[in-house]
């Protein structure tokens, strides 16, 4: 008995440790990770716009996860550029991109999000550091072209720089870059580097992104073919690419900087200016220049993405006003409260004092769930949606079900004529197995739903999965240990009629050690008499077996 008590107490201590641990990680997330003590809300509860995009690719082409990730990076860049803060862009279900924006995006932002990324190579005509916003730009240091009126003959011709263009360039602010409208391919334009540190005047397009066949990271080598320890990006062109590339490199190689550079342009901003050191005739270029492996990989990924421009189709676009969001949240919480009260009332009605154990257990489950959801919200960016709230409310019932399975098991054992203490242990052993396998099935359903779905379904599956897991924790670390401790109080062990475990009310056949009352009276014909007979045999057989095994239980 003392052993059982210490085991019960130990489980409760573990629970306290678990809760303290969760509070601790939440505290550290709030203190140092910019987290919060309340879960973040999804757009349907907070108000905002959620856009689900599906990539549009050529017939038969498959979108790889890598391309999706690239697309997300590009869309993020576009949304950030539009000045919308706190946008969340994620991939879901392996093919969709979900853009969640607080408030409402304007038409330009919508267009920006949907536009397909456009990559192109353009020669650099002039470059300079970015102008500092707010300061009057210094006059250009570069000499204006000698014959500004001349008609440019090719893409790298300095004659593209008209005095107007030069003036515009001198005053250009990088914040003004419009990534939605790509400049016409046969005209020069002014833009900035993606990180907004440099501005450029670029000539017309010489190589289209669609002519990029492949781009790979490789170890950089010197002219003798020996590894230099650096990283390079091997670029392979096809279609019109090699010819355009050859013409460009032939013309600009050897010119002074920046005229010897061409720019890799994505969405109208310059990813990187690249100096041409050799004439490339076969469309196979190697880009080197002090890359880290990561930077090289990044460039290669972007170049590959440029090779397969993905457009996006809006699959759904949902705007929720802040009022509607607040209404939905209130309704969800209200439903939860009502559901909780109903469950509590029913449990107390059915299980008397045990009903209070249900209430306490649900309370513990609620605390664990809240802390877990808040922690995931702080660290993993999980957002509670309306469907998630529905999942939490519905979980109340499923969690309480575990307690019922357990209580009914104990009652079964009491009906068999066992003492409360042993009824508790045997009942627990069997009930826990049932709870484990049932929860495993529920958990499986939740995980599969989560992995294979988009949007709302995910939020729902997520909360359902969490609560299923917490259900097991609570029933093992709280409900059962608590009952163990309670079973030592005379209120429960004497089977008080309000305890919910009254052997008398349960029609227990046990009448002291190895004594059983007469079989349950059979007044309902031969059939029930037969059943009753059998019922008694089960009890007797068990007691006989226990006795022969020399065990009390």
């Amino acid at each position, binding site marked *: 008995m003392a052993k059982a008590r210490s085991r019960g107490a130990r489980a409760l201590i573990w629970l306290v440790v678990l809760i303290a641990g969760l509070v601790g990680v939440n505290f550290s997330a709030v203190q140092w990770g910019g987290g919060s003590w309340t879960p973040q809300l999804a757009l349907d509860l907070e108000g905002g716009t959620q856009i*689900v995009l599906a990539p549009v690719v050529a017939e038969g082409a498959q979108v790889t996860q890598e391309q999706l990730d690239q697309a997300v990076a590009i869309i993020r860049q576009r949304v950030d550029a539009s000045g919308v803060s706190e946008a969340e862009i994620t991939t879901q279900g392996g093919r969709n991109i979900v853009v969640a924006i607080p408030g409402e995006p304007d038409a330009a932002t919508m267009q920006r999000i949907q536009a397909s990324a456009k990559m192109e190579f353009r020669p650099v005509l002039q470059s300079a550091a970015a102008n500092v916003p707010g300061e009057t730009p210094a006059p250009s240091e570069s000499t204006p072209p000698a014959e500004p009126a001349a008609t440019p003959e090719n893409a790298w011709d300095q004659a593209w720089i008209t005095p107007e263009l030069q003036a515009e360039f001198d005053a250009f602010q990088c914040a003004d870059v419009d990534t939605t409208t790509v400049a016409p391919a046969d005209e020069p334009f002014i833009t900035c580097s993606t990180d907004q540190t440099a501005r450029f005047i670029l000539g017309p397009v010489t190589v289209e992104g669609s002519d990029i066949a492949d781009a790979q990271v490789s170890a950089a080598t010197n002219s003798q073919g020996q590894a230099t320890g650096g990283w390079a990006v091997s670029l392979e062109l096809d279609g019109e690419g090699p010819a355009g590339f050859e013409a460009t490199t032939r013309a600009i190689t050897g010119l002074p900087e920046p005229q010897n550079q061409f720019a890799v342009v994505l969405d109208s901003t310059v990813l990187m200016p690249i100096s041409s050191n050799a004439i490339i005739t076969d469309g196979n270029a190697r880009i080197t220049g002090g890359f880290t492996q990561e930077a090289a990989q990044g460039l290669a990924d972007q170049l590959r993405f440029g090779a397969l421009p993905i457009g996006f189709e*809006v*699959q*759904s*676009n*949902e705007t929720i*006003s802040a*009022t*509607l969001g607040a*209404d*939905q949240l209130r*309704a*969800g919480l209200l*439903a939860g409260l009502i*559901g909780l009260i*109903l469950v509590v009332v*029913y449990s107390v009605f*059915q299980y008397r004092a045990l009903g209070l154990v249900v209430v306490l257990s649900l309370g513990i489950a609620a605390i664990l769930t809240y802390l877990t959801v808040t922690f995931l919200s702080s660290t993993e960016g999980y957002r509670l949606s*309306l*469907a998630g709230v*529905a999942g939490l*409310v*519905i979980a*109340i*019932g*499923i969690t*309480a*079900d575990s307690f*019922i*399975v357990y209580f*009914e098991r104990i*009652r*079964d054992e009491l*009906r068999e004529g066992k003492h409360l203490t042993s009824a508790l242990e045997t009942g627990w*052993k069997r009930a826990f197995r049932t709870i484990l*396998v049932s929860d495993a*099935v529920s958990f*499986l*359903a*939740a995980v*599969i*739903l989560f992995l294979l*779905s988009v*949007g*709302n*379904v995910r939020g729902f599956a997520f909360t*359902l999965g969490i609560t299923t897991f917490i259900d097991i924790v609570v029933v093992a670390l709280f409900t059962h240990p608590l009952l163990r401790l309670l079973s030592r109080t005379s209120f429960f062990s004497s089977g008080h009629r309000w305890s*919910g475990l009254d052997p008398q*009310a349960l*029609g227990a056949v046990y009448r002291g050690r190895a004594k059983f009352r007469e079989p349950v009276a059979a007044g*309902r014909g031969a*059939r*029930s008499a037969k*059943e*009753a007979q059998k*019922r008694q*045999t089960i009890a007797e*057989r068990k007691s006989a077996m*226990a006795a022969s095994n020399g065990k009390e*239980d």
Partner: protein
Amino acid sequence: MASLTSVGNELYTGERSLPVVAKRKLWLSIAVGILIALALGTIIRGGFVFGIEFTGGSEFRVTGISEASTDGAAEAVEAIAPEAEARAVTLGSDTVRVQTDAVSEEQAAEIRAALADTYGVDSGEVAFSFIGPSWGADISQQALRALVVFLVLVSIVLAVYFRTWKMSVAALASLAFDLLVTAGVYGIIGFEVTPAAVIGFLTILGYSLYDTVVVFDKVRENTAPGTSGELLDNINLAVNQTLVRSINTSIVATLPIAAVLFIGALLLGAGTLRDISLALFIGTIVGTWSSIFVAAPVYAQLRQHDAIAEVTEKPRNERGAVV
């Protein structure tokens, strides 16, 4: 103590007994009859009603109206997009929903302004959503994939746990019954099938099996090798012994779902809450029925010529037997 407890006692001892196994052919015929009736009813009524998420279109929700009425809503929309076929309904006391065929973004902006004007609210109170026609198809395809993966995995889990494929088959039969009946109720009444309803539908999977597992666990215990009595009688006793438990777990599971359904339908009208909980509400009730009147009879039918196995090992090592 509540009379359910004494009924439970009588069911436990066998003094009172539902002839679940003895009348299994009757129960199974009823199940098949229900399915046929629902299928015919759905066909006669004209198939399923799919929500805008499946057909594609635009939806406007005006919230914060002092008195919700659909007056003027359709006119306001048709003045801007004449061919859009506006359908307006009130939701709760302060919300009007207008669904239309797909409209362009410019039109949508104008319609929002017009609706805000009509109802005298700020245009920020007019929520707008657009759903492309492929959205619903996409979500149902994923749901179907999830369903298949789940069924395969769960039948393996059950077969391993119960150590007999017959229980696995019976559990899946009752699961199929739950899903079909729930779908049938949607079809016969004409509830709108939305992605949220599909979520609820998929959640039935977990719940339905939970119930069946609880019943089968007791069946397994009562029919463990070496147990005395006839196999079918013991199955019947197991089902009866878990009856009170099934009723209690079902009621407790249904109460919060009912709360969500009630609040969802009353306060928010058609939407995520109502759609998820409606499917689940039907599914839980059907699930309770099927774990008793479908799963157990099917299992009994599969094992009708079997007998309880003899103990082959020492009693203390036997599986699932009493301690």
